[in-house]
């Protein structure tokens, strides 16, 4: 018994020691031996992956450090990954600043891993230049937590060659704009007849099915949730509009047969299908379309048009990307990050350094065979100097036929809507299931599915 107590005592002592050791582990130092403020920046590409981008970044950092001798920048290849994020955040091993997509911003605020940057956001002039809809996304309780870097708005990405074969590209290269979902289906059917390739594809797994289905549903008039007077949220998508939207997706497979055979489709598979010309159309935005080039797409082989309209409206999901500053960052580090962000072109006042950064950004996009000239919504107001300059420079460096993208660039007649205000990921999980069901079960009952999905969302996540 005594022996057992001894062993137990030792084990507990070790547990406590280990807990303390792990708890105190690996917080990065905020200053170096020379007293400079050290910041680590995430999302740096390695030399092997993109030599030109790497070279540009090294040059940019050298120029920044020369202009700011009290700041030292460390490059970090960390890229946001849902599987490792929380572990790295808890262990204090995240870089000082790193990029996250909009879809994760609410979770990150909930988890408390983003620093309050309100003071610096105002001090560096960002506050006066940021668009109101973005400000809403990056704030909570009047505090600001994210630095917006980009915006996206969804459109209909098209494979120019397949559309051309089916007669849907004008002589000047302008792809046909399907005005409605029905017209898009008509095009997809003809494309399949003429080319033998599938006309349309939707992702359906990893919450991407729900994410992509949301704007389709909005265009049918679906309202997913409402907040009542008591502040409680109610799921409101057990509706005829939802049934119609699901029926539309179901018909893509069973009535029109314009989807690939595989209906458990990951987002990466869409990049491949579009990049290799196996599918003619999908919903997309510039950061996704960029990935098609990994599979051989050239800037001129892809076009983008406006979202087709549903019975209720023409609506595009909009979102963005943000840089997060680590919650453990010191005020000096936060200020240093703002200086860096401003220097690299994410600021609001145009300087020679920013011009140089934008020029390097364009070089990098060219090197990676990515489209230049696609105009997305901007986090910044129209009169923001940097925004205007970037748009002009991109237009000057066009690497494609502008007609391939001009219908998308003309934003008229499109309503933009941000993702649902709460539990968006949970909603996407449930919608993934609905989309999968209608695409794998010919006899799926859309009304029953809508009813169950709304009830599940209410009881599992809103109550």
């Amino acid at each position: 018994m005594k022996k057992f107590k001894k062993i137990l005592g030792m084990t507990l002592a070790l547990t406590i020691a280990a807990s303390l050791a792990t708890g105190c582990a690996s917080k990065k130092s905020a200053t170096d031996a020379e007293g400079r403020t050290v910041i680590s920046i995430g999302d740096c590409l390695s030399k092997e992956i993109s030599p030109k981008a790497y070279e540009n970044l090294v040059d940019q950092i050298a120029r920044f450090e020369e202009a700011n001798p009290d700041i030292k920048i460390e490059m970090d290849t960390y890229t946001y990954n849902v599987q490792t994020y929380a572990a790295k955040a808890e262990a204090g091993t995240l870089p000082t600043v790193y990029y996250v997509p909009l879809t994760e911003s609410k979770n990150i605020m909930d988890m408390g891993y983003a620093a309050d940057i309100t003071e610096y956001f105002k001090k560096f002039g960002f506050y006066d230049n940021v668009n109101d809809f973005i400000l809403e996304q990056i704030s909570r309780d009047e505090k600001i937590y994210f630095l917006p870097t980009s915006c996206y708005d969804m459109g209909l990405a098209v494979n120019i060659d397949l559309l051309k074969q089916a007669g849907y590209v004008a002589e000047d290269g302008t792809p046909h704009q399907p005005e409605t979902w029905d017209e898009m289906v008509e095009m997809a059917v003809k494309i399949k007849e003429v080319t033998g390739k599938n006309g349309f594809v939707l992702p359906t797994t990893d919450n991407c099915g729900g994410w992509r289905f949301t704007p389709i549903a909005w265009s049918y008039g679906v309202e997913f949730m409402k907040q009542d007077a008591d502040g409680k949220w109610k799921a409101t998508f057990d509706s005829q509009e939802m049934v119609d939207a699901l029926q539309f997706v179901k018909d893509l497979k069973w009535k029109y047969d314009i989807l690939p055979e595989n209906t458990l489709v990951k987002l990466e598979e869409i990049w491949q299908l579009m990049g290799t010309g196996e599918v003619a159309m999908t919903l997309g935005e510039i950061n996704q379309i960029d990935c098609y080039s990994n599979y051989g797409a050239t800037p001129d082989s892809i076009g983008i048009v406006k979202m087709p309209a549903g019975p209720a409206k023409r609506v595009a999901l909009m979102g963005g990307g943000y840089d997060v500053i680590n919650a453990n960052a010191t005020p000096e580090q936060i200020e240093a990050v703002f200086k860096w962000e401003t220097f690299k072109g994410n600021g609001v006042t145009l300087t020679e350094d920013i011009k140089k950064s934008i020029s390097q950004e364009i070089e990098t996009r060219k090197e990676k065979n990515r489209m230049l000239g696609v105009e997305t919504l901007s986090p910044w107001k129209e009169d923001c100097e940097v925004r205007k300059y970037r748009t002009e420079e991109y237009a000057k460096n066009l690497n494609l036929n502008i007609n391939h993208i001009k219908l998308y660039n003309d934003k008229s007649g499109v309503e933009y809507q941000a993702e649902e205000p709460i539990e968006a990921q949970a909603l996407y999980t449930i919608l993934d299931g609905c989309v999968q069901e209608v695409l794998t079960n010919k006899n799926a009952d859309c009304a029953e599915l809508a009813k169950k999905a709304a009830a599940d969302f209410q009881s599992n996540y809103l109550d």
Partner: protein
Amino acid sequence: MNNKRTFRIKKDIAAWLLILPTLVGIVLILLRPQVQGIIWSFCNMQGFTPNGFAGLDNYVKVITSTSFVPTLVNTCKYVFWSLIIGMPIPFVIAIVMNELLFFRKTTRVMVYLPSIMPAAAVSLLWYFMYYPDASGLLNMILSQFGIDSYNWLQDSRFTILYIVISMTWSGMGSTALYYFSAMQGINSELYEAALIDGAGFLQRIKVVTIPQMSGILILFIIRQIISVFNVMEQPMQMTDGGPNGASMTLGLMNYKYGFVLNKPGMALAQGVMMFLILSVFAFIYFKANKKIEEGQM
């Protein structure tokens, strides 16, 4: 007294030093996260930091979730199919290896090869074998016989079965080798006696091999239950739990609660529940193991 104790410590110091790295490893890697996970499952979580006592809230949310029962049933289906397919196949392979007079070593290597592949690679390999259009390997074979392509993983009635087949392919080699080595240990006189009594091949398996191996078979059944009950990687890679939750498992749901839906409290609570269920099997396993070691089984 003190001198005696000092002497004992000095005497055992080498043993303690030898034990120390393992002990530290057990504490750090096994004990600490388990104890911490159980405690945190009763807490409100902000990210992965506890933020106040929540009582049984997380457990109630998990159990009352409309996806809990279907997911638990699915997980049991994985276990069921893995016992139906995953147990007999390695046993048959082991018998074949045991009966072989030639190429025994080569066969062993061949059988073991799939086991050295990482689970993610196996899932990807089978994902493409099951690919639902004409480019999928299995559909290519079907087309040779004039049969239309089949939507393998998308047939929600059998998605779990198909995933279990891929898991069996991956794991059967190592299990077969265990069975094979157990068969090698069976006293050959028993077979000779059975032969003299006129027992045929199948009869010998029935009256000699199976009874002699009943202990190890029971142990492997329990191990199989424990390991398959935790399955996550394969459905995550092959179907993401779809179509419409048809292949969702408690393990994958746990991952989603923890890393996708930002509900770490629920992930921890569900993890503790799985731990408790599997503790029962672990208890049975150790009891059975003890009996086998004592020669009672």
